[in-house]
């Protein structure tokens, strides 16, 4: 069980790097969906099979692995955009920054005052690294859709960290969190569609009229 868990968490990190280096939107969305799918297995592997974990896993799988990617695919189909060209920070620099952040996450989590049971856990470093990846995508990309993906990956990082604390999060709240994520992405995709119709591009560079 534990080996599989570690393997999956390392896979999450690899997917982070893939996301930072890829310019094709469709494969970015697919990767995010794949990452979401992997995350939905974590509660089962980390805490065993119970009503709570089964429910959480299936809701997470349905939303992170299927519904949200579906919404995003629909958005790029509507707006005929395939690639993220000219990110604010190039692919190689973001990859390097991502590597540094991941290394930093591992070093930093070694120093955190974790309780003894968690001191060897990969949840903390992987969660932090995923948070950093999401943040990097948020600030380095121009397209509305990649920014939304950055937000999703950021949320994935929090979800991983939350694995340490499933008992604190009642099911209702957990489902509320995921539902809010879904609706948030839904509103974002509608907005992307409008941005594209108005500017004939989804670049958020055009969204700079409001300033002092």
């Amino acid at each position, binding site marked *: 069980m534990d080996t599989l868990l570690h393997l999956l968490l390392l896979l999450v990190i690899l997917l982070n790097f893939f996301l930072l280096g890829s310019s094709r939107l469709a494969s970015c969305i697919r990767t995010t969906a794949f990452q979401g799918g992997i995350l939905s297995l974590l509660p089962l592997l980390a805490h065993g099979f119970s009503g709570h974990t089964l429910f959480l896993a299936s809701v997470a799988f349905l939303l992170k692995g299927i519904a949200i990617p579906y919404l995003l695919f629909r958005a790029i189909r509507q707006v005929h955009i395939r690639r993220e060209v000219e990110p604010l920070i190039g692919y190689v620099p973001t990859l390097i920054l991502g590597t540094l952040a991941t290394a930093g996450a591992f070093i930093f989590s070694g120093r955190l005052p974790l*309780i003894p049971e968690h001191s060897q856990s990969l949840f903390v470093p992987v969660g932090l690294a995923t948070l950093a990846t999401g943040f990097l995508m948020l600030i380095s990309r121009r397209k509305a859709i990649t920014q939304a993906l950055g937000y999703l990956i950021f949320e994935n990082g929090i979800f991983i960290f939350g694995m340490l604390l499933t008992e604190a999060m009642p099911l209702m709240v957990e489902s509320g*969190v995921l539902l809010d994520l879904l609706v948030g992405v839904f509103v974002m995709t509608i907005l992307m569609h409008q941005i594209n119709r108005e500017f004939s591009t989804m670049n958020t560079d*055009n969204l700079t009229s409001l300033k002092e």
Partner: protein
Amino acid sequence: MNNMENNLLALLLLLPFCGSVLAFSMPSDRLRPLLLPLCATPHLALTFLVIQSGRPLTTANGWIGVDPLSRLILPVISLLFLGCSFYAVGYLRCRIAWGNRTFVGCLLLFLSAMTLATISRHLGLLWVAVETTTVASAPLIYYNRNRLSMEATWKYLLLGSVGIALAMLGILFIAYAGLAGGEHVSLQLDDILHGAANYSRPWLRAGFVFLLVGFGLKVGFAPLHTWKPDAYGEAPGLVGALLAGGLTSVAFLALLRTLQIMDAASEAVMAREAFLAMGLLSIAFAAVFVVRQPDFKRMLAYSSVEHMGILAIGISVGGIATFGAMLHLINNALTKGVLFLAAANIHRRFGSKKVADARGAISLVPLSATLFLLGFLAITGSPPFAPFISEFTILQGVFSNGHFVTGGLFLFFLAVIFIGMGSTVLSVVFGTPPEKTGTGYENYRDTFATTAVPLIMLLLIFVLGVYLPDPVRHICADAAALLEVRP
């Protein structure tokens, strides 16, 4: 808690929610806006029933409950929403061709989410409610469907979502602090307050910082306020009023919950210093940007940043200033209602919210212009309006606790803001009207539907300014007592 009170709280939440579902499924654009006052009126009545019972109410599992802080904020948002709902009926009648299904539905959903946030006693539930307010209010900001509102909405949605995600991280850290401190892991507020003394310090402090940044972004403390002028500037006036008076109060409540936890863990000093820094920075930023502000709705947004800063300062110095801050929360919400609704009328008349185009409102829309002017005097703390009393109380607390530098800066920035806002407001109200406006709304005149609500709100803050009724005083004092540091 007996059954009836339980039902009362459920009704309070379900009423606007069902209204929202009904609004989305209703076919008629003409009748739909009527749902707003139809839901808001019983909501206010229920709110009064809830706050009347003196005991603290909590449901069996302790997730939902009414404590003195909820007793303060619930009537504020309910009253403000009621006012805005009557205004909305008149407003949406003018814009019947624009459609209002999403607008009305999201408004009611927004009310439901704000209600849930004020009465939730579980950090996870509070988070869900605050995030729902973001999602529900984004379509409201986008109502005008133009490039600028698109930009404002995108920034609001993305920044709001990321900010609230940081708050979630903060909540998890707090829970982890409990785990590392050997306490029972729970996110129920009373459990946390009960065990906070044993919580692990590093995690608790880290959690506080993330919560301060996350919810502070929703409150709009500088330098996290960048979405605010855009959103308030581009949203319809009544949405601006609800965001500036309602949503900020709810987000501030979330911060106060954090403060309660820090107090219980005897970490009050650090928390209060952070509040003070955020508060002073917000007032300073507002003072810089409000001077020579060419757009009067953006000016109001900076005024909102300023008043959130004032609240934070009041909370941080404690003592009588806490009471002042609680009172100021009520006053700020009502005054922002007056200002945004009056500004919306002026905006509509001129078809522009730039001071260069919108001048001399007093001769064209005399009542709205007067309301705007009086609202400005009220918000900048001129007597006899209520914000004067609350700002004065806060200032008194600041000086009596020996924070002379803070007090001096506070007064200086307030004076700068008064002058800065004054020059903008005076040219909007008294300037020479432009030759032509050419917007299609030249026929717009002040009507009962668009001026009655801000007028009543202005009367309320006038009354609160000359005479503070005992129930209001008690509500503020009880709320303040909850935030006092017990040695």
